């Protein structure tokens, strides 16, 4: 048993992969001596030097573009996008260039790079530093999207991402950087497209991505006092999505709540809920409930901000209703 923080887990993953493969380098704003605002990459520049831990000007489209070109010609860059909100700045390079190069070239070019960024509200950072934009990139064919839900997943998924031959966007929850989890000393990888069943149950399935996994686990604790049997699933990667595990659970329990911190409209909860509705319809004993972030820009005031994200109490309340055959939404 070795408890380390999510931040340390990410740092270890990068260091291990940089030791294994000299074509891996890290590029972004203040990734070297400063170690990023969250101090995630601290110490890497001492080991690997400024040639492989590259501080850039504040030019997200520029250094993202550089990473695409470097990846296309044999490097494996890890791009640090300081806040997930800044993904909007790199959209052309990520979605028009990186995501499409392999396809448009008929398989001749490929772009093995990782965009490391974050998501998550309730850090009192207001609307431009709090968004969870993973649904946005999940919509683009050619990109893979990983959503670690603890230090263990953060390390295993990032190592897999760095070794993947495609562009991968990995979202860490910025509120979880100091959360500790048991992370093995020995090397391990977590394959993409394999969801984790964190708790087995037969009355209701809670599907939670990233930190919403913890919300689901808390909700399950509340529900266990009421003798409601809960199954918890963490998809771990959105693209590729482990549809089989999700559908099997939906068929077993007949009741599903999908919890995700992206906006609810046209979001990850909508995608997962619709796949269940399409492919496990006849097993459903209740509507699939979506619980995403409220469809408002993230407000600053703590009182308001806390209203916008799904909470364990709300998840438990909805689970209680659907298990009892009560309506969550009016007929």
């Amino acid at each position, binding site marked *: 048993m070795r408890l380390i923080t999510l931040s340390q887990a990410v740092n270890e993953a990068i260091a291990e992969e940089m030791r294994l493969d000299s074509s891996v*380098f890290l590029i972004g704003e203040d990734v070297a001596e400063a170690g990023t605002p969250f101090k995630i990459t601290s110490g890497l520049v001492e080991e690997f030097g400024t040639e492989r831990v590259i501080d850039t000007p504040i*030019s997200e489209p520029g250094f*993202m573009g550089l990473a695409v070109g470097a990846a296309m010609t044999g490097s494996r860059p890890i791009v640090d996008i300081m806040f997930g909100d800044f993904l909007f700045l790199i959209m052309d390079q990520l979605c028009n*260039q990186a995501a499409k190069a392999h396809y448009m*070239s008929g398989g001749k070019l490929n772009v*093995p790079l990782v965009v490391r960024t974050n998501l998550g509200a309730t850090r009192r950072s207001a609307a431009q530093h709090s968004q969870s934009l993973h649904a946005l990139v999940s919509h683009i064919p050619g990109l893979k999207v990983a959503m670690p839900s603890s230090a263990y997943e953060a390390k295993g998924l990032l190592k897999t991402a760095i070794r993947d031959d495609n562009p991968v966007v990995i979202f860490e929850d910025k509120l979880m950087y100091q959360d500790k989890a048991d992370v093995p000393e020995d090397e391990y990888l977590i394959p993409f497209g394999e969801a984790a069943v964190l708790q087995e149950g037969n009355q209701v399935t809670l599907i939670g991505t990233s930190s919403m996994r913890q919300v689901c686990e808390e909700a399950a604790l509340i529900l266990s006092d009421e003798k409601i049997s809960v199954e918890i699933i963490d998809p771990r990667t959105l693209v590729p999505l482990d549809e089989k595990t999700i559908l099997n659970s939906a068929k077993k329990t007949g009741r599903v709540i999908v919890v995700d911190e992206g906006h609810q409209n046209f979001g990850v909860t909508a995608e997962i809920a619709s796949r269940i509705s399409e492919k496990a319809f006849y097993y459903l004993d209740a509507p699939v409930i979506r619980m995403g972030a409220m469809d408002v820009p993230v407000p600053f005031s703590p009182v308001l901000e806390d209203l916008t994200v799904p909470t364990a109490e709300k998840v438990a309340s909805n689970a209680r209703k659907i298990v009892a055959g009560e309506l969550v939404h009016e007929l």
Partner: protein
Amino acid sequence: MAKKINTNSESYLKMYSQMVKIRSFEDQANQLYLDAKMPGLTHMYSGEEAVAVGICEALTVKDKITSTHRGHGHCVAKGAELKQMFCELLGKEEGYCRGKGGSMHIADQSNGNLGANAIVGGSMGIATGSALRAKLNGDSDVTVCFFGDGATAQGLLYEVMNMAALWNLPVIYACENNGYSEYTATDEIAAGDILDRARAFGIEAHKVDGQDVLAVNKLATDLVARARKGEGPFFIELITYRYHGHHVGDINRTYYRSKEEEEDWKKNKDPIKILGDWLVSEKIASDDELQIIRDDIAAEAHVAVQYALEASYPNSNEVDMHVYMETT
């Protein structure tokens, strides 16, 4: 000494042939489009041949280029085969991208062409990133980033030139200034002198007559050698002209440029004619010999088109192939 002249003569004739090859390719492509045999749309390089050929003849196969929506010339100049290019234009399986890219996305990585790009200015990051990779790995190749005057209005250029200058990357920014940003005169969209924009980052910048392939090649040869030694980046503005409209369907264009202007460039500043006249005056080749070169290449282009027209389309099972690369 005699051997040197001989070598140079070969190189001059190669440049002539390459320019003719681009012109023949574009003539055939234009005809395919007008005959409605080609899906989509395309942008003709005719008139700008000396830019692509002058620069690419200064590069080795290992050197990289990034190209633009007006990219057929770069592709031919960097060594691509006409058959595979026509196949790509027609969406055929044997195309450079198995028919998935089309005119605006031909990539030929075996010759160092990292691909045309349908986003104006979209490849500036890629070119600079390729140069960053070369520097990090200690590779000796140089990357040339082709873009038009219109693309100088994109912010990405200034972000990547800043980093290229900070880190002395082996990249050459080649601005093909054909005077028009789509359907608008460049004077109306570009403030100040384009060269000053590069100079603001401390990047050495040159202006050259883009219709004079020998002048372009001489400058490029010098800058490529210096970039290889770590003296980059460099910026070149090449003054040139496109004979066709912005795209093939842009026929009615007198509202942004006059027919007289077009005639003047075609008659007096044609890059193929300029080099041809010089080759004859220097007695490197006769008019008849040049005619034979032109006829042979036109015939080659014709054969390539016929081949592509008859080539097969991709199998429908290719539609979801190459979205992701299988990681081994």
